[in-house]
């Protein structure tokens, strides 16, 4: 049974439809990525799951129970790491984590252990007594995560936790998320950074204009699109005739040529690069660097939604 089940979820802000009959099932033990541009409905979905937002239509169950504001038993099993840092400036690192952990765990001794573990997990041992204002952006994000996961929830929802984070902290956060997953937590991870989603998520849903446009593993998603390989050749001079001839090669379905650089998009198939290089050799066309790329989630997003992820 799915840990989170969303069926026909509709959420309107006035005339604007934020979620349009969204359907999702999130299974136990996965790192589930919600990928979409800003305003696509990712955070709205999260807030509906958490029962913070009213919605117009649909059903949401978490751990098999309908999620309501007073479903405390379910809430105890959920951890939330919001997009905005949600800590108290007047409390130290330790106190902040202890406060939020105390909203779920009554036992003082157990809580102390959990707080210490969380501090160790995010690497804030040297900053226990520091106030949030003394922390850098990356450390603050780590504190934000610690506050959300200290009570060892079974379901952790991370809403863009790496926004405005330095690469070092970002890597630590991503590794930490994978560790939490390996320790048994199910993760819902929203982001508009496709590299992150590709790196850590076991399954991804592409959200656009409030509906789920595609869902699957990253490989499955890549398999859904036409692009199998993109060949890029730099420092090459071509005339219109030669471009047309390249376009007619087997598996080539799209070409863009700008400033002596050609990008050849090929559908799935083998020996695409060999065929292109053979043609160039036959025509005695000189060229510079050549490289090929497999499709990325951005290609998937582009093909499925018709827009770039970061447009």
């Amino acid at each position, binding site marked *: 049974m799915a840990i989170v089940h969303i069926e026909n979820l509709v959420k309107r*802000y006035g005339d604007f439809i934020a979620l349009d009959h969204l359907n999702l099932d999130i299974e136990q033990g996965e790192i589930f990525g919600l990928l979409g541009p800003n305003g696509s409905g990712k955070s709205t979905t999260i*807030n509906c799951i*958490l*029962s*913070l*937002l*009213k919605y117009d239509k649909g059903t949401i169950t978490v751990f098999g129970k309908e999620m309501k*504001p*007073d479903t*405390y*038993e379910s*809430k*105890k099993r*959920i951890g*939330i790491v*919001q997009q*905005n*840092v*949600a*800590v*108290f400036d*007047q*409390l130290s690192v330790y*106190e902040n984590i*202890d*406060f*939020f952990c*105390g*909203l*779920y765990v*009554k036992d003082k001794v157990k809580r102390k252990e959990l707080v210490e573990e969380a501090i160790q997990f995010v690497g804030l041992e040297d900053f226990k007594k520091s106030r949030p204002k003394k922390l850098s952006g990356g450390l603050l994000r780590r504190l934000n995560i610690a*506050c*959300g996961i200290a009570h060892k929830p079974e379901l952790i929802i991370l809403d863009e936790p790496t926004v405005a984070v330095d690469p070092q902290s970002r890597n630590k956060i991503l590794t930490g998320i994978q560790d939490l997953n390996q320790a048994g937590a199910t993760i819902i991870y929203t982001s508009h950074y496709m590299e992150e989603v590709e790196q850590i998520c076991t399954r991804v849903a592409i959200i656009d204009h409030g509906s789920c446009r595609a869902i699957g593993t990253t490989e499955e998603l890549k398999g859904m699109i036409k692009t199998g390989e993109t060949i890029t050749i730099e420092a090459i001079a071509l005339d219109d005739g030669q471009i047309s001839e390249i376009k007619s090669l087997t598996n080539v379905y799209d070409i863009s040529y700008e400033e002596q650089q050609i990008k050849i998009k090929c559908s799935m198939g083998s020996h695409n690069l060999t065929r292109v290089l053979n043609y160039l050799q036959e025509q005695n066309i000189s060229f510079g660097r050549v490289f090929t790329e497999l499709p990325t989630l951005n290609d998937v997003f582009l093909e499925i939604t018709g827009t770039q992820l970061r447009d």
Partner: protein
Amino acid sequence: MLHLIKYRFLQMIRFRTSMFWALAFPLILGTFFYIAFGNTDSDTREAIPVAVVEQSGAEEQTYFKEFLKEMDGDTLKVSYLSEENAKKAMKKEEINGIYDIGEDLSLTVDKSGISASILQSLLASYERQSEMITDIAKDHPEKIETLLASLSDGVVSHTKEVSIGAATLDTDTSFFFALIAMACMYGCFLGLYNPMTTQANLSAVGARKSMGAKSKLLVIISDMLVVEAIHFVNVCILLLYLHFVLKMNFGAHIGYILLICLLGSLIGVCLGILIGSIGKMSEGAKIGIMLTISMISSGLSGLFADALKTSTEGVIPWIAKVNPATLIADSFYYLTVYDDINRYRQNMMILAGISVVMLVISFLAVRRERYESI
């Protein structure tokens, strides 16, 4: 609940801005008042020249004439003149003001300044004493003899005002009562923080707290208890400072005074909670609204000038009956000067009523647990 209380307490006492307004600012302002009033002590000041013009109906104002007679000498230099001569004298700056005595009493001054303020303060003081005599004659006729005896002994003056509540207080005390009222109202700076950090649609910490496995009502109640307790202590600290450092005497009704502090701090906290609960304005905008309301309320209770309070009571009397700061300041007055427990009780009930109304409105605003937008 203890966990919530502990951390709320730590947050609030470390919240420097709010604690400044709720605790430090009234202490500083009180000290300034003390220094300012000390400098205008009648012992070191020359008598203020003032003209008295008798209009029709002046014969009814025998008590005011007596009052002026008491003042004549050290405090005032009184001259009875015709209206025309009085105006001429004021134009030549021979006098600082003109008291018109008719069916009503009024004061005309040519320019503002300490002398004008004192003349206005004297008139306000007299009017308050008249009201006091009328009230006591109506509510406690048995005490009227004590009061009149005190008056005839010359205890009542602009610097020494009679008290039948075991405390002898000068007229400047009214400013300090208004200051205490302002300090109570400034509890709003602490109260504001409650809904702002509890509502998911107002802050990120509010959203995170809303996701906790604790009942929202429990969170609201524990936050409220902490803030009220802290501000009650703040007001008590101010009172202790006024009593032990600035040597103000609050009389013997300690229990009643503590009740004023309790309900006074409650109304300030409730004001903050109410403003924090309604609307999705920025924190700065809410602070602006709160500051405006608390300053107007304190101003009308006599914080800036006793005349403002007196004139407001004359023009819009119902404001004094519902203005929290006036109710607080007057409660001190009724208790320490008038010894009028009935009026004191009435004020306490009105204060409690206003607090309940504000709390109910706030609760209706914050009871939602799901929001239209975040």
